[in-house]
């Protein structure tokens, strides 16, 4: 009950904010909600299953390009293009999962990093179709979903909120299901989990695919809502971001990814207003948080006050 109130409450608050926020923050929050959905996807694998991937940009980009290329080259409308993005995420994450899950620990980090790098280089290599580094713009006329113009700020905000709501509720549902509990058990002690009769490989593969598909949904939505697809989104940077957001907000908490994304977005936004050395400020705050709130913001709240936080 408390859990439902808290999470539905957050979504209701985000809904209400649409009507009161000034344009600048309104635009930011739309972006944050899409990126937070990406972080929610990352958290399924990292926070709940205990698998540290350094290659999630591959899934984000798979969704983004699956959507954008079908619009650009095949002239698809947004709805089927979004589905194409999801299917791309499904295929890529299943393939990567089958291969990378033969390894564990540091080797898993390296293998995922390598695959994502290969994906990034593939986008650059096929520049004829992908426009490589420069990327390409998705025109306003191509971004009308069921008669709703997604380039309009309000519509964009609601679309971002819809994506975030689905991601958050899927994550919340998942981690309270036996499947999600088993993922946590794998994180805590994989051998023990196998010796209770669970197929840990199948569970981890399931986690990679769910995580990859939420990430791909975020990538596809990002391209569609902000009208651009580019190779930057497949670069290492975009694999590190969700890790940072999740660590900051609290790995293995449902709300952590949103809190972390929000916090880091405004940390960089505010500090870049003060000095050009804003990365320094951001860095210091990050180090301080790691030292004083090692479980992330939501993780500390759970540890100190609300032990029921999922």
């Amino acid at each position, binding site marked *: 009950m408390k859990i439902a109130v808290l999470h539905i409450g957050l979504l209701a608050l985000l809904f209400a904010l649409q009507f009161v926020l000034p344009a600048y923050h309104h635009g930011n929050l739309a972006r944050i909600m899409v990126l937070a959905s990406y972080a929610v996807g990352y958290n399924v694998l990292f926070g709940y299953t205990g698998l540290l991937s350094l290659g999630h940009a591959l899934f984000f980009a798979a969704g983004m390009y699956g959507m954008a290329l079908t619009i650009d080259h095949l002239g698809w409308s947004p709805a089927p293009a979004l589905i194409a993005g999801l299917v791309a995420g499904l295929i890529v994450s299943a393939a990567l999962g089958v291969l990378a899950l033969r390894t564990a620990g540091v080797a898993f980090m390296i293998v995922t990093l390598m695959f994502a790098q290969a994906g990034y280089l593939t986008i650059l290599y096929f520049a004829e179709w992908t426009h490589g580094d420069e990327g390409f713009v998705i025109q306003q006329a191509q971004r009308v979903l069921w008669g709703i113009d997604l380039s309009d700020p309000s519509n964009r905000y609601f679309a971002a909120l819809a994506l975030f709501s689905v991601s958050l509720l899927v994550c919340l549902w998942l981690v309270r299901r*036996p499947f999600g*509990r*088993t993922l*946590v*058990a794998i994180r*805590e*002690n994989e*051998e*023990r*989990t*196998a*010796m*209770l*009769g*669970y*197929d*840990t490989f199948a569970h981890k593969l399931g986690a990679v695919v769910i995580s990859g598909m939420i990430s791909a949904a975020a990538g596809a939505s990002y391209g569609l809502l902000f009208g651009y697809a580019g190779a930057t989104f497949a670069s290492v940077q975009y694999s590190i971001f969700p890790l940072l957001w999740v660590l900051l907000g609290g790995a293995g908490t449902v709300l952590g990814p949103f809190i972390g994304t929000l916090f880091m977005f405004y940390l960089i936004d505010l500090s870049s207003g003060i000095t050009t050395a804003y990365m320094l400020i951001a860095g210091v705050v990050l180090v301080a948080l790691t030292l004083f709130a090692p479980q992330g913001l939501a993780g500390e709240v759970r540890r100190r006050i609300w032990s029921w936080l999922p």
Partner: protein
Amino acid sequence: MSLLSARGLSKSFAGLQAVRNVDFDLPQGEVRALIGPNGAGKTTLVGMICGRIAPTVGTVHFDGRDITRLPAHRRIRLGMAYTFQITAIFAGLDVAENVALAARRRLTGDAVASAVEAALARVGLAGHAGQEAGDLSYGHQRLLEIAMGLVQEPRLLILDEPTQGLAEAEITAFKALIRDLAGNTTVLLIEHNMSVVMETAHRVSVLNFGEMLAEGTPDEIRGNADVQAAYLGTG
């Protein structure tokens, strides 16, 4: 009929022969103790039975089926349960969730909670359900391991030194628990505590330097000169 039957099991670790050519049969419903000096290969032998350790050579049959090539989780699903010698609970999760993870393999919904409650009560941890497992005392962690085994209602329950670190009263309760299981559940019990062996086991197998040295009733084993020699180190 044998529920479990192993033939010619051997395991070497980088030249060290931990288990050599062991044949082992366990009839349905029996409580069997597996004893032997430290390093005799007991944990390695049951590891090959439950699938944690791949044998170098040999075969394992369970309920008439060749399971030698089955991965551990598939063997567990056939009705084996294994409790670790070195406590391997989920330290960061609460006690009830530890047992629930074991229960959810065969139960769903509300049945899980009542099975968890029953298993915890059976090992005397009823009051600890909400506690974080890592905060339990060592002896209580051992009892939690046992509860995780019991709640699976296995056909074959393999316990690796379950009474290590238990208090006297807890050991007495453990003996009663095993006697209670006897007949329904087949139990393979690795045990150093001789009073537990003598009072609970139908038969005893003795492993020494990786080889099966003797097998018999507790009384036969107690009187066996080879076994005495192995334990006193004069063999």
